[in-house]
C-alpha cells in the first residue's frame, strides 16, 4: 500500500495544498511583525511594536481574561454534568446511545446562528430572563462542547472496559460510587483531558453565539478581534497570531496525548 517514495505528482499536489492552506497564516504572521509592507513580496522593514502594543492594550488583556474564565467555567460545568451522565448511559443504559448519537450530530444540523435565534427567544423574556448575561453564554457553550465531551468520555469508558472493571470492583466488595471515583475516573482521565483541551480550543474560537448572545456586553477574544479588524490591521494581526499560536500549542499537546494513549492501549 505504501510506497517508500511518493511520486512527483503527489508531492507537488501536497506542496500546493500546503502552500494554499498556510499562505493566509503566513501572511497574518508577517503582517503582525511588519513595519512597512506595500508593493513588495516580503515586508520592507520589521518591528515588534504591534506585539508590544497588544500587551499594553488593557482591552485585549481583559478580553483574553474573559475568554479564559468563560471557557474554564463552561468546561468545568460540562465535565461535572457529562461525566456522571455519560457513565450512566454507557454502562447502564446502552439503549439510549441512539438518542445520544442524534444529540451529537445536532450541532451540525443546527448551526450557531439558528441556535442563537432560539436561545434569544427563550431567554430574553419570561421567567428566566438571562439574555445578555454570562449565564446564557455558558449554557450555549455547554451545548457546543457536548459532542466532544460525549465522544471523548464514551470512547475512554469503552477503551478501559468500564463495565468489566466495575463488575470486578463490585465482586471485591466496593460500592458503585466508590468504584466510579477510585477506579473508573483515574482510568479515563487521559481521555477526559483530551476532550477537555479540544473543547477548550473550540470554545476559544467561538464567535457566532458569543457575538449574537452577549456581543454588546461581554467581550471575548474573538469579539475583540472582530472589532479590531476594522481599526488597525497590524495590531489585529498580532492578536490573530497569538490566538493561533495558542491553538497550535493546544493541538500539539492534543496530538502528543492522543499518541501516548493509543500506544498504551495497544500495549
Amino acid at each position: 500500500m505504501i510506497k517508500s517514495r511518493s511520486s512527483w505528482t503527489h508531492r507537488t499536489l501536497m506542496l500546493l495544498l500546503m502552500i494554499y492552506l498556510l499562505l493566509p497564516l503566513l501572511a497574518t504572521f508577517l503582517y503582525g511583525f511588519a513595519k512597512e509592507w506595500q508593493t513588495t513580496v516580503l515586508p520592507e522593514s520589521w518591528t515588534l511594536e504591534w506585539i508590544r502594543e497588544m500587551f499594553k492594550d488593557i482591552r485585549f488583556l481583559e478580553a483574553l481574561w474573559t475568554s479564559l474564565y468563560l471557557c474554564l467555567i463552561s468546561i468545568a460545568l460540562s465535565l461535572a454534568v457529562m461525566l456522571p451522565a455519560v457513565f450512566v448511559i454507557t454502562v447502564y443504559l446502552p439503549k439510549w446511545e441512539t438518542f445520544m448519537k442524534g444529540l451529537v450530530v445536532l450541532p451540525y444540523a443546527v448551526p450557531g446562528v439558528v441556535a442563537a435565534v432560539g436561545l434569544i427567544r427563550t431567554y430574553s423574556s419570561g421567567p428566566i430572563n438571562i439574555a445578555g448575561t454570562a449565564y446564557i453564554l455558558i449554557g450555549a457553550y455547554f451545548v457546543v462542547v457536548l459532542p466532544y465531551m460525549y465522544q471523548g468520555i464514551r470512547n475512554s469508558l469503552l477503551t478501559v472496559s468500564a463495565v468489566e472493571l466495575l463488575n470486578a470492583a463490585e465482586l471485591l466488595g466496593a460500592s458503585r460510587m466508590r468504584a466510579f471515583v477510585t477506579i473508573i475516573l483515574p482510568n479515563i482521565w487521559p481521555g477526559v483531558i483530551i476532550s477537555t483541551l479540544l473543547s477548550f480550543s473550540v470554545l476559544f474560537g467561538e464567535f457566532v453565539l458569543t457575538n449574537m448572545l452577549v456581543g454588546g456586553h461581554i467581550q471575548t477574544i474573538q469579539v475583540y478581534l472582530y472589532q479590531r479588524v476594522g481599526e488597525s490591521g497590524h495590531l489585529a494581526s498580532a492578536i490573530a497570531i497569538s490566538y493561533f499560536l495558542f491553538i497550535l500549542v493546544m493541538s500539539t499537546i492534543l496530538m502528543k496525548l492522543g499518541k501516548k494513549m493509543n500506544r498504551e492501549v495497544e500495549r
Partner: protein
Amino acid sequence: MKARNRWMLLGLVPFALMVLAFQFAPLLSMLTGSISKSGASGFTFAHYDKIFHSAYYLKAIKNSLLIAVYSSLIGIIVGLLCAYSITRFTPRIRDRLLMLSNMTSNFAGVPLAFAYIILLGNNGVFTLLFKQWGWDIFSGFNLYSWTGLVLVYVYFQVPLALLLLYPSFYGIRDQWREAAALLGASRWQFWRTVGLPMLTPAIFGTLGILFANAMGAYATAYALVGGNYNLLAIRIGSLVAGDVVNQPELGSALAVLLALSTLLAVVLNHKMSKRSQQFTASYASNPNLKRSRSRGRRQGDAVQEGVNP
C-alpha cells in the same frame, strides 16, 4: 438494572436539564416563534408567506444555497484529490500533513476573514503587488463579492473534506487494483468502475457535511462583508440581534428554513455513512491489517473535530 442501583439515574438529571434548557427549549421556541403573530398571540404562516414573496429574502436564500453548493463541490473535488494523494505517503509524513490540515481547519471565522483581507483585500498584499506588476487579470477580482466569499469558504471546506474523505481510500484495497490491472484495466478504468463507486457513499456523505457547514457559516462572512452581502445566515443574525429593527419572528422563520436545509444535509450524511460502513466493514474486521483499526478511530475523530466557522 438492579433496584439498588436506581439512584445512579440521578446522575442523568443535571444533564437532562441542561440539554432541555439549552438545546430543545430554544429549538421549540424558534419553531413556535416562526408561526406566531408579531406582538400578538395567535398562529399564522404570515412570516413564511412574507419570505416566499419577498425578492430580498429569496435572494438571500438563493445566495446561500449557491455559495454552499459551489464551495462544497470545489471543496470535495480538491479534497478528494488531496485525500488520495495523502494516502500515498508514509504514515509519518501522512500524519504530519493531516495535522497541518487539521490545524488550518481551526483557522476559520474572524481570523480567516482577516487573513484574506490582508492578502487580497482592497489594500491587500497581493492586490497591490498584482497592480504594480500590471497583472490585469486579477483587477476584476473583489474579495468582498461573491467570488471572494466562495474563495474564502473553499479554504475552510478543503481541510474538512480531506479529513473526512481520506479514511475511505483505505477501503480500496491494492489487491483490487492489481486484479484490475491483470485483467487489462487501465488506471482510469479502474477508478471509474471500481474506485469511485466504492467512494460514492463517502463522497455524498461528506458533501452533506460540507453543505451544512457552508450554509451555517456566519462568522467568516460576517467578518468579511458585514451586513452588506445578502446571505441567509447574515439576514437571520441582523433580524434577531438587530442592527436595525428586531423582528425575531421573521428571523425565527428564516432560521427554521436554514435548519431544514442543514438537517436534510446531515440526514444525507447519516444515510451515506451507514452505507459506506457496510462497504468497508469486511476490510475493517480483518485483524491482519493493523491500520484499519486506527482508521476507524480516526474517522470518528474527524467528525468529532467539528466545524465551527
